[in-house]
């Protein structure tokens, strides 16, 4: 972490949390250096929201320690809250208030003096282009506007740390890009940012460092470049047919596993039994084609790429992020989620 010589602004140590029979977190530890934009990547149900709720003192962990800017957040939550701005996943606004009234309320809850309140609201309104609609009722806002208002409300007291839970879910591309730019500007200005996301490209584009969360544990940690570099090797995706049968895929797998320069062969059952290979380099591709041709196996498509974050995820968890997302969606319990979110 040569770029970040100072102490960590956020330190989470061995956080564990159980909801009934479900172990949401099983010993999560991570450190966020000052001035870093840190991504928490994982599918829905991985425990990201639970980590952020514990960090923002909304929830107490069963075990573990939380330190924010040197403050023990579990022992002194009020002091910790002064250092934090939280932008939750579900934008909870009061539809009948105007944006400005909501920001004024927020400023009062953070005990900002009057002059500072007005100044901060004006600054943030200009920064986030809210001037045109800030005095309209929140119930009339679009998703992008609500998200900007929520971001402004998290930034009002100029926190050292900004925590965002899935900030771009449901946003159109334009709003998303604008939000990314604001976050990068914030980071450049010295704010430490921790954001959770299940979008690979978002974490890849924004994060200086990231942690991959799966099944309540951090299973990989580092900068995107480091993680991809550590994987090593190129990625090849082979489709014997557009939708191959398991037998064909297994036949191809057995054939290619012995091939020189092939490090790993994994059948991706959710993607039409495509075969994901990790190979040494460009020259291996030709060898693969030859082997397949000699065995009279058809080739629908053969694609090569440098390692991506998806490959990092696949390597660490054994499945792609998309598959993990699909599995999470299938096993979602909206009632339980609502109960967990409600105090």
């Amino acid at each position: 972490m040569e770029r970040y010589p100072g102490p960590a602004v956020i330190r989470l140590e061995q956080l564990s949390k159980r909801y009934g029979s479900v172990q949401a977190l099983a010993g999560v530890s991570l450190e966020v250096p000052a001035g870093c934009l840190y991504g928490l990547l994982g599918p829905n149900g991985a425990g990201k929201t639970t980590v952020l709720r514990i960090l923002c003192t909304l929830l107490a962990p069963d075990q573990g320690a939380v330190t924010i800017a040197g403050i023990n957040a579990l022992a002194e939550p009020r002091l910790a809250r002064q250092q934090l701005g939280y932008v939750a996943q579900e934008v909870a606004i009061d539809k009948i208030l105007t944006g400005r009234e909501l920001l004024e309320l927020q400023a009062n809850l953070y005990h900002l003096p009057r002059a500072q309140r007005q100044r901060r609201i004006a600054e943030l309104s200009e920064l986030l282009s809210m001037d045109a609609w800030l005095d309209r009722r929140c119930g009339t806002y679009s998703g992008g506007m609500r998200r900007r208002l929520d971001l402004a409300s998290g930034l009002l007291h100029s926190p050292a740390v900004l925590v965002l839970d899935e900030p771009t879910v449901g946003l159109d591309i334009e709003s998303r890009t604008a939000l990314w730019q604001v976050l990068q500007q914030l980071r450049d200005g010295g704010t430490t940012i921790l954001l959770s996301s299940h979008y690979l490209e978002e974490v890849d584009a924004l994060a200086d460092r990231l942690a991959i969360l799966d099944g309540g544990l951090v299973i990989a940690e580092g900068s995107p470049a480091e993680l991809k570099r550590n994987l090593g090797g190129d990625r090849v995706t082979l489709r014997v047919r557009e939708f191959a049968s398991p037998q064909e895929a297994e036949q191809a797998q057995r054939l290619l596993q012995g091939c020189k320069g092939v490090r790993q062969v994994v059948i991706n059952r959710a993607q039409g039994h495509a075969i994901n290979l990790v190979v040494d380099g460009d020259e291996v591709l030709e060898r693969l084609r030859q082997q397949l041709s000699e065995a009279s196996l058809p080739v629908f498509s053969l694609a090569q790429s440098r390692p991506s974050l998806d490959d990092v995820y696949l390597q660490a968890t054994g499945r792609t992020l998309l598959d993990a997302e699909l599995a999470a969606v299938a096993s979602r319990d909206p009632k339980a989620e609502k109960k967990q979110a409600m105090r």
Partner: protein
Amino acid sequence: MTGATALAPALAPAPAPSALAELSQETLALTKRLFLQLQRRPSTLVAGILQPLIWLVLFGALFAKAPAGLLPGGVSYGRFLGAGVIVFTAFSAALNAGLPVMFDREFGFLNRLLVAPLRSRFSIVLASVLYITSLSLVQSLAIMGAAWALGYGWPGGAGLLVVLGTLLLLVAAVTALSLGLAFALPGHIELIAVIFVANLPLLFASTALAPISFMPSWLGWLAALNPLTFAIEPIRAAYLGQFSLTRVVLEAPYGNLTAGQCLLVLTLLSVGLFLSIRPLLDRKLS
């Protein structure tokens, strides 16, 4: 101009305000929010006056020709009813105290409040109490005005203070109950159901509409234990210009109670209810 300053974290902290100043700031801000909601959606205020007004007019008319001397003190039914409807107004308003809190719990707004460095999270509860107390008193005063317009009287001088003080005690107790329910129940549907079911039976099983002497023994017992009755009888006495702490206002199956004793019961009830919901609030808010 604003870009750099807007984005930079705060460097030098301002001098710390006192705990009381911070508590006032956050409580007043939360109370202001509730009043803004009321201002823009006044249906709560209007309904809270219209419904008891209809009761006052209809019930008063229903028994307008009841034989004289039927009721204790020989008063007309309208005068008898007035105190009951006033208390019912305050009670209904206070019973709904938990609804805004419940909606905030359900739709995530409470989480927004809990992430803030509040001096005390009880400022959330305090704001609700301030708001509902104000609302109840305004509605009750409106009904008192209507009762006066209908010729049912007006409590003179100290009597007015007795009425308002009694209403405050009842509102405090019922607000505590409603807030407790708002944190204990899982959603607004359940809370509305409880409010709906509790409202009218509590009214009928009190001396709001009829004296205990009219009731069968079992209902008389219920009415004599009903908190509403302990508020209604002192107010009735104040309306009759007969208020004195030592004067008997309630002839219950278990004995007679003076106005002072009724007010004491209400006070103990308020304090008791707030103390009993405190562990629940601690758990939910801390």
